[in-house]
């Protein structure tokens, strides 16, 4: 099997699974399809001769972040998406968050188109710089050290924010007298 076939296979899985993610009513299935999509993506990375990135993709996204997603979905015990809207109304005509979603989708499309056309102009990345772990490490801590540190700080801020948001006042246990 040539690498072209593999590329189309993984690509099809990635796109198909991603589309199915938003088509699912059951959030658990959505999460699983997203994982499948990540798996296909990491297959694509391997085809690009970047096994390190592929494995990291699995460890970080599929192995850690999606487990958290699944945890939350299970904890909320929401087997089906709540459908508040009337099914007969066309999605684009519905109010509130849906319109916002449509706007976001349009923005994403435009960005994607822009990025693809731009990418073709610059001609992609230099060869061989992504395959070796040492090379990745070196470029992260030399050429891109500022970006790396900024990202770290950003994640730290997000983490602190999450802790603050999720913190709850300690629940007072009910005493047996007052129930």
């Amino acid at each position: 099997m040539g690498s072209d076939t593999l590329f189309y296979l993984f690509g099809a899985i990635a796109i198909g699974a991603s589309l199915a993610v938003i088509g699912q009513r059951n959030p658990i299935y959505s999460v699983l399809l997203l994982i499948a999509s990540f798996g296909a993506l990491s297959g694509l990375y391997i085809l690009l001769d970047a096994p390190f990135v592929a494995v990291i993709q699995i460890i970080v996204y599929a192995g850690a972040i999606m487990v958290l997603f699944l945890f939350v979905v299970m904890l909320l015990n929401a087997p089906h998406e709540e459908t508040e809207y009337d099914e007969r109304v066309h999605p684009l005509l519905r109010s509130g968050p849906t319109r916002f979603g449509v706007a976001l989708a349009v923005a994403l499309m435009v960005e994607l188109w822009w990025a693809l056309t731009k990418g073709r102009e610059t001609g992609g990345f230099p060869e061989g710089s992504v395959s070796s772990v040492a090379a990745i490490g070196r470029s992260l801590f030399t050429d891109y050290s500022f970006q790396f540190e900024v990202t770290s700080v950003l994640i730290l801020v997000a983490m602190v924010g999450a802790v603050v948001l999720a913190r709850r006042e300690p629940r007072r246990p009910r005493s047996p007298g007052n129930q």
Partner: protein
Amino acid sequence: MDSTELVRSLQEAVPGATLESAASLDLHATIYATRADLPAIARALRDGAGLRFDFLAELTAVDFSPREPRFELVYILVSTELVQRIRVKVRLPGSDAHVATVSAIWPAANWLEREVWDLFGIVFDGHPDPRRLLMPEDWEGFPLRKDYPVQITMVPRTAEPLQVTEQQFRASVEQDRLARK
């Protein structure tokens, strides 16, 4: 402390209460109280100086049917502080067997009173949770009464196997799904 002495100190703590001390074979101080006086006496027994019966060891009833008054409630109390025991008894008529609860004074009485209600049908006024304790909730009759037959064939309904059809089961599961949605 023997029963006459106890009666005297109780009488001081609850003036106007009708109390009588009774002979007992097992050397337990035993007193009879009336239904009306019970809450005041219970409080005095727990808090009174020289009494301090903080520990309700046992609460049960005896059915003396066909004698009237039919029921006798028995409270066995222990003072862990002064190391003494007392037995307080309350006579209840069979026609209207009810008495004030003491579960606010001794929390231990909660289940014990439920058990007495369950098995003897004695009502405890003001009980926080007046349900059956040992028998199934839909049981009829009070098994430890003397007029309750020893051998009966009564099928507790809660233990009957649930007979549902396939469709009913599916509908129920679906309903549950909808409810959880």
